[in-house]
């Protein structure tokens, strides 16, 4: 097909003005208005830049810590300052650097790599970035006002409870991080839908660039892992603010619940960070060896297996908590299991190197450095998975060494490899090879000198999170060496910055281009609109297998060489075979994502500062901004568009064909995971303190859930009826609107009836754990009800505004998904709260 040069979808020459129109449509706003830009490249630059900023800030904190520990009994930092600094170092590195930088690389690279013009939800991407930017900066600045949290990045209660951490620091952590997690989930939705639905035609799953695979699994893991920690932060914040005793043992709570929830997120988190980095390596190694990845399928299997196995590891952070030995050994076994996929990947890379000829340039050096460091980190990982060995080294510097080997080796080195490798695709100049080698050797030597001795200091008994140690311990030489190494590492990073300043000139339009002779689509000539035309992909390395591809794409021979509807647009394809389905029209620049992010950030931060009224105002404004931006999305159907090659694509899709439906499904998976985490917490706390569960006689009457259940089911039925009666014209609207409002009312009535029944039975959240858990069920129900309510109101408003009918129905479809999910979750909640205590009694 590719050889059939006469058989291109579109003929040359292209009409005059086609390219100019494309450029106008996709233009990035000039000067300070650039903050309204939603182009994935602009947002990608901002995103990567901000993540790097946090990497530097957290790195400075690390240097401060290393200076404090360089000599015994040092007084460079005070105890409280040190405690704040190590808490912030961990938190910022994990939440403000590692996850965001990977998402940033995804936003920057994926559309180009997949041959799309942009992400499927450009404004959501912009919102995710700005929320992270504003929230992250505010969170970091708490350090300057002595308001920073000091409970460790893992925030174990009861140390972080209001009794032992009375200040605002812990609240900043809980609300700030909860908020940044929301931004991460927004990014994950973007990535999942982007990878599954906006690939170039013909890019089947087995031709997908490995980075896209890893980002898909990365985003999938975020969907299931992050809700656990979001629930945990909600529980702890509710405990701190309203005394709901989730973690207070005296009233039936349990400190270990936090650890379960936190590590159920926290361990997959390690792989969430590592997988995309491994994906980068899987892109760089073949390109630098000039040969396709050996064992492509093995690597995909390894990625999927890692995604699963990593959810069976969380207790390996809790080997010393006094859990029965047999339970521990299950997690020890799963920890072994997760070593296998890593082994597969390492040897697949080695096989690729062997099958080609590795060019030893800076990206390759970073990859080789990664292989060494990550292997060592993986091996110490196997060691700490051995339960008895972990009893000794847990919470010591051995573990500090281990996870820095895994995270810095497994993530930072590939990231630097990626910077050097992809810079020519996004900058007018490549980064300097000479400076790059210096950077690599300084970072590699500095890293090993800093962190290898920590294995030994840990074995010699040095615990983590100590701000000082006495001279008699014999840890002083090792710590001094570590400090020197840290300074060397920092020098390497500093050199990299100099390289960036000297050589990085961001631009996609005039980028240096494919200097490595790589084979994937991001190396096509690109501009603000992505590739000039969307290619047909016939292999995993199209640029190698279709040598003329770059020229043909640039000439406009492939699909959609201009704009079909006069707006920004990209082709939506089917998830497995990537066959074209419809033409998605995308929104352009706007203020709403930025303002929504600022107000969302203000909402959370003001809530922390207990300025409730102002916070609520900002919250309402944030929702309003989102509604304003949603008002213009879902444009009315346009006539079908010919994209070339005799293919005419519709411009509107509803139901499961719509990309928006997919996003809603992913969002509901997040909500579902959150609720499952809650159900787990409920059952878990019952196993810990069943004595706090009341006798059936003391519960709300068995008949009390009947009314709310009836209302919920009735609401669902009414909404289905409303959907049947979606208006064809102005006459039908009234009925639809009334039914939708009725359905919304039913949802609220169900909530009120359940809450009042519980209240009348004398249940109070602060009494004991049972009360708190029942209240929590209502809280989560209220949360979903509120969301459904806003969306129902929005649907009614669109109907009144003539923007919703039986054809243009995406908003209603999404409302339906959300509504029926809410009903399902609420029914499950009723069953749990009313049924379980009777069952257990």
């Amino acid at each position, binding site marked *: 097909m590719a050889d059939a040069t006469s058989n291109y979808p579109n003929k040359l020459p292209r009409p005059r003005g086609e390219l100019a129109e494309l450029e106008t449509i996709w233009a990035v706003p000039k000067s300070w208005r650039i903050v309204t830009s939603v182009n994935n490249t602009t947002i990608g630059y901002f995103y990567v830049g901000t993540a790097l900023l946090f990497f530097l800030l957290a790195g400075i904190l690390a240097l401060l810590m290393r200076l404090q520990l360089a000599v015994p009994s040092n007084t460079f930092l005070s*105890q409280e300052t040190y405690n704040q600094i190590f808490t912030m170092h961990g938190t910022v590195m994990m939440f403000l650097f590692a996850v965001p930088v990977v998402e940033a690389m995804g936003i920057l690279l994926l559309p180009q790599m997949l041959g799309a013009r942009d992400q499927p939800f450009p404004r959501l991407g912009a919102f995710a970035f700005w929320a992270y930017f504003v929230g992250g900066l505010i969170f970091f600045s708490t350090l300057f006002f002595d308001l920073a949290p*000091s409970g460790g990045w893992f925030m*174990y209660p009861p*140390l972080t409870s209001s009794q*032992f*951490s009375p200040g605002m620091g812990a609240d900043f952590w809980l609300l700030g991080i909860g908020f940044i997690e929301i931004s991460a989930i927004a990014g994950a939705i973007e990535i999942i839908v982007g990878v599954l639905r906006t690939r170039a035609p013909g890019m089947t799953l087995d031709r997908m660039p490995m980075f896209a695979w890893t980002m898909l699994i990365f985003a999938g893991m975020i969907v299931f892992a992050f809700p656990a920690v979001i629930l945990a932060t909600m529980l702890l914040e509710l405990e701190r603010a309203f005394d709901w005793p989730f973690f207070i*043992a*005296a009233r039936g*709570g349990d*400190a*270990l619940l936090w650890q379960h929830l936190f590590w159920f997120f926290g361990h997959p988190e390690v792989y969430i960070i590592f997988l995309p980095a491994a994906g980068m390596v899987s892109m760089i190694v073949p390109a630098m060896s000039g040969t396709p990845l*050996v064992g492509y399928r093995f690597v995909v299997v390894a990625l999927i297996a890692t995604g699963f196995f990593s959810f069976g590891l969380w207790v390996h952070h809790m080997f010393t*908590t*006094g859990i029965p*030995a047999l339970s*521990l*050994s299950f997690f*020890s*076994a799963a920890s*072994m299991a997760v*070593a*296998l996929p890593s082994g*597969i*990947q*390492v*040897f697949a890379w*080695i096989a*690729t*190197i*062997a*099958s080609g000829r*590795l060019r030893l340039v800076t990206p390759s050096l970073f990859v080789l450095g990664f292989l*060494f460091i990550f*292997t*060592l980190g993986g*091996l*110490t990982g*196997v*060691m700490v998975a*051995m*339960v*008895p060995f*972990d*009893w*000794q080294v*847990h*919470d010591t510097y051995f573990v500090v060494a281990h996870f820095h080997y895994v995270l810095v080796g497994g993530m930072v080195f590939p990231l630097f490899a990626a910077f050097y490798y992809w810079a020519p695709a996004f900058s007018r100049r490549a980064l300097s090879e000479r400076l790059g080698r210096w950077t690599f050797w300084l970072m590699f*030597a500095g890293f*090993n000198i800093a962190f*290898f*001795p920590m294995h030994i200091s840990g*074995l010699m*008994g040095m*615990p*983590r*999170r*100590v701000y000082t*140690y006495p001279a008699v311990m014999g840890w002083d*030489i*090792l710590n001094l060496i570590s400090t020197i190494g840290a300074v060397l590492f920092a020098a390497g990073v500093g050199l990299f910055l100099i390289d960036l300043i000297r050589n990085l000139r961001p631009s996609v339009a005039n980028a240096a281009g494919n200097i490595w002779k790589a084979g994937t689509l991001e190396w096509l000539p690109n501009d603000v609109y992505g590739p000039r035309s969307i290619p047909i992909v016939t292999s995993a390395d199209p640029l190698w297998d279709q040598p003329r591809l770059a020229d043909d794409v640039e000439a406009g021979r492939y699909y959609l060489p201009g704009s079909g509807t006069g707006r920004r647009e990209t082709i939506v394809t089917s998830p497995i075979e990537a066959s074209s389905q419809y033409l998605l029209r995308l929104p352009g620049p706007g203020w709403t994502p930025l303002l929504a992010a600022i107000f969302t950030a203000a909402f959370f931060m003001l809530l922390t500062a207990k300025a409730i009224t102002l916070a609520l105002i900002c919250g309402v404004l944030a929702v309003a901004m989102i509604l304003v931006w949603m008002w213009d999305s879902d444009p009315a159907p346009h006539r079908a568009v010919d994209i070339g090659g005799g293919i005419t694509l519709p411009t509107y899709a509803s139901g499961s064909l719509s990309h928006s439906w997919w996003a809603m499904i992913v969002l509901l998976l997040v909500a579902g995971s959150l609720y499952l985490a809650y159900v787990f917490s409920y059952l878990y706390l019952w196993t810990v303190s069943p004595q706090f569960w009341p006798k059936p006689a003391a519960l709300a009457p068995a008949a009390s859930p009947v009314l709310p259940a009836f209302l919920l089911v009735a609401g669902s039925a009414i909404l289905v009826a409303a959907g049947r009666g979606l208006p064809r014209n102005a006459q039908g609207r009234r009925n639809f609107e009334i039914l939708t409002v009725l359905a919304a009312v039913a949802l609220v009535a169900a909530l009120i009836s359940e809450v009042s029944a519980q209240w009348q039975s004398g249940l109070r959240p602060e009494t004991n754990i049972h009360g708190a858990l029942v209240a929590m069920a209502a809280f989560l129900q209220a949360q979903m009800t509120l969301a459904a309510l806003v969306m129902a109101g929005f649907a009614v408003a669109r109907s009144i505004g003539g923007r919703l009918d039986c054809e243009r129905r995406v908003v209603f479809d999404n409302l339906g998904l959300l509504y029926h999910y809410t009903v399902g979750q609420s029914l499950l909640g009723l069953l749990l709260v009313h049924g379980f205590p009777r069952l257990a009694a």
Partner: protein
Amino acid sequence: MRRAPSLGVVLAGSVLLGSCGSDVQSVLAPGGIQSRQIAYLAWLLFGFGAVVLTIVIAAVWLAIRGSPRIRGLLAQENAVIALGIAFPAVTLTLLLGYGVWLMRSHLDLSHTRDAVDIEVVGEQWWWRVTYSGADGTPVASANEIRIPVGMPVTFTLKAADVIHSFWVPSLGGKVDMIPGRTARLRLTAERPGIYRGQCAEYCGGPHALMAFEVVAMPAADYAAWLQRATRPATTPASEIARRGQSLFLATGCGACHTVRGTSAAGTLGPDLTHIGARRSIGIDTLPLTRENLVRFITDGQHIKPGNLMPEFRVLQPPELEALASYLLSLKVTDRHG
């Protein structure tokens, strides 16, 4: 290319391990049955790690610089299966089996009745130690634990406020102390000596300074010591110590501290009945001397920032002198009977 530095690092590490290995609190200087077993496991794991690391480095080296035949072998999917799946599957099965077997031996299923029971409660930021006296009466102490050599000791571990972790590396692994839960840990010291321990779970504030010492002594000495420790405090013999005692009571020390045999019965802070016999003050931050005692009373927030004892700067030097004399006199004498 990378082989030289990496091997160098490993070598340097081993040298460091061997040479400057201070055994104050070291995993690799075991003094008990449990810690020795884990030390064996550690060396086994280091050996395993060295082998695997060497294989990976060699494979990378060969992939870049090897002969075409070797590179051809390495470039096959079968190489990925053999080295990436089969080899780890076998070795990790063996390791997992050994680890589980070791856990079983740690469970000490044949827990004997003659074991010594000691309760340790982690508090911010000190250790409340309660021995079980000869007739089962609890004997309160703090921040220093004495155990008999060669006998299994069962530690009952609790937390009073936040999570702490009880860890004596030279005797065995650590166990967390979690509010609302009770954990147990069995340790057996093999030779007499002083083993340092430290809180291993971050517990806020001066967590870094929450250390303690375990003094392992011959069983007979231990029995005699416990017998003496059961007795109330000696009445002060000297005039200055008597003045110290009345100052101790008037200053309100008894609101937080207990000295058995006096009206001081506070339970918020460490029991001081036999403080004069302990080796350190301020939870192992300073050796117990008259000067350090006075410093801790008047300047405790500098020695151990954030600790819960207020600074008693109201006391004048002569009063402090008397108070220190009294506290130092609080020790069990060797007079039997």
